[in-house]
């Protein structure tokens, strides 16, 4: 069914890139391997947000909550229970999806900005609980030193684990976007009123989208714990949610891979400019201003626009 995709130039490029990413840890110093893994985790988070923001048109203002909830879930399970370790890996995303269902259930009843404001309040509520509940969550100290299965202990192994889960999630998200569900979601983004008129239960559709996005954010949360071995309340704080929102904006709302680019740019900026000055956000601010004026469709959107003949061909093949 996906035969035409496998033969496309685009697929060969991705396969080549994947191969390079597979062998990179053999040459790179530890620090860069860590940064690469961090980019994958952040990219997955940003892409899960873009599922509902770029493709769903929802004002998902507090997406970080689902990431943090999953990270805390796996951290607490690995640290405080003697359940088999793999259960934590599964419970993280599932619990994130459940929180997504609860928060989303309230939010889809409102529209646009009201949706966003309610989500910030409900999300902040969860942040306050985690922040204040010292003897369970560690409060603002967070939870350091989370035990991991021995097989994931070497950085190289956790790099491969993160890369493979990341790629699987990418494929799944791509399939979802190309499915009737994804097409309908994009139609809702374009015109919710018309969607109601053609028999689509818009709220339910949006709610399912939020749950799916929360699930993938949860996977990212679990991967973060695999990489960092610790959790802290910043994972649930609204500042992080804003940051991933900016990643989507940087990369391009309406593209599939844009958020990866956005995430890579932000992680790189924070890491490499952050070494010289703690005011790296100043540079981010300037970049953002330039971007909004000159590349409103994001960096990836800009390149897609530039190489339009090719992408148009892809659309043709992809649609019939």
């Amino acid at each position: 069914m996906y035969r035409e995709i496998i033969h496309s130039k685009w697929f060969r490029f991705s396969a080549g890139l994947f191969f390079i990413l597979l062998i990179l840890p053999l040459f790179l110093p530890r620090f860069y391997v860590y940064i690469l893994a961090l980019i994958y985790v952040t990219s997955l988070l940003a892409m899960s947000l873009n599922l509902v923001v770029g493709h769903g048109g929802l004002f998902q203002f507090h997406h970080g909550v689902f990431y943090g909830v999953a990270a805390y879930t796996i951290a607490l399970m690995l640290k405080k229970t003697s359940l088999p370790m793999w259960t934590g890996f599964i419970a993280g995303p599932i619990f994130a999806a459940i929180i997504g269902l609860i928060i989303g259930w309230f939010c889809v009843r409102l529209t646009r900005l009201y949706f966003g404001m309610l989500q910030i309040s409900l999300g902040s509520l969860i942040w306050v609980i985690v922040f204040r509940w010292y003897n369970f969550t560690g409060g603002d100290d967070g939870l350091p030193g989370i035990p991991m299965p021995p097989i994931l202990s070497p950085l190289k192994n956790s790099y491969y684990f993160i890369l493979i889960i990341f790629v699987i999630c990418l494929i799944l998200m791509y399939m979802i976007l190309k499915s009737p569900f994804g097409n309908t979601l994009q139609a809702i983004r374009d015109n919710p009123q018309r969607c109601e008129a053609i028999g689509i239960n818009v709220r339910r559709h949006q709610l399912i989208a939020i749950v799916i996005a929360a699930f993938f954010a949860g996977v990212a949360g679990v991967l973060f714990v695999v990489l960092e071995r610790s959790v802290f309340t910043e994972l649930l704080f609204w500042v992080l949610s804003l940051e991933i929102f900016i990643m989507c904006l940087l990369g391009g709302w309406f593209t599939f891979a844009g958020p990866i680019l956005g995430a890579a740019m932000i992680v790189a900026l924070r890491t490499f400019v952050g070494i010289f000055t703690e005011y790296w956000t100043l540079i981010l601010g300037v970049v953002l201003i330039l971007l909004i004026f000159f590349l409103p469709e994001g960096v990836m959107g800009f390149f897609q626009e530039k190489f339009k003949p090719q992408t148009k061909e892809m659309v043709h093949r992809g649609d019939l």
Partner: protein
Amino acid sequence: MLEVESVFKSFDDFLAVNGANLSVEKGEIVAVIGPNGAGKTTLFNLITGALRRDKGRIIFKGEDISELPSYEICKKGIARSFQVVNIFPRLNVFRNIQVAVLSQQRRSNRLFRPAHHMAVEETNSILESVGLLDKAHRIAGSLSHGDQKILEIAIALGNEPELLILDEPTAGMSPEETSATIELIKRLTQMRGLTILFCEHDMEIVFSIAQRIMVMRYGQTIIQGSPEEVRSNKEVQEAYLGGE
């Protein structure tokens, strides 16, 4: 098929629909006419569930649909087009219609199957019958206004409706496009056995295709009847036709 029984709808203090009555039989082409602000679009919004009526009953195929949300009403077999172009501007023409077809086939929630192989035949047959097949891959927002209005109707066809409601289908069209659209509407009723309820400002169109006409003023039904009856009705002449 459709019965609207003394329906009321007010916005704050303004009575937009003030006891309107309308009945549509299967296979008919019925027009609703009336001056601007007579409540025609509001009436259509009430029938399709985009708005909730204050009082009265709306019965479709023997079932009271006045409390149902619009997506449920659509599934009962009523589809509509809008007065102002209301399409999916970022999607291409094919997908605009396919979304409706997939919704009709209850496949909108399929998650992991690629959509581009689904409902291709149904979608293409609609594209062909409205004459947009050669523009299937154009982004909908880039079409001309006339084509967008046609697409507007084509999306509604994707739901395989029994009753098709058209809110000023030829608004803003050139004379050529208008006559093509009228031909299209006539053809659709014949080919697909559609029942059509529409409203229109152009009296020539109304009297050339409508089998029955309902006249509205100040949210009220003045008369329902054949074109001849409506034309010869004194009240209508005074209130409306005379003023043209």
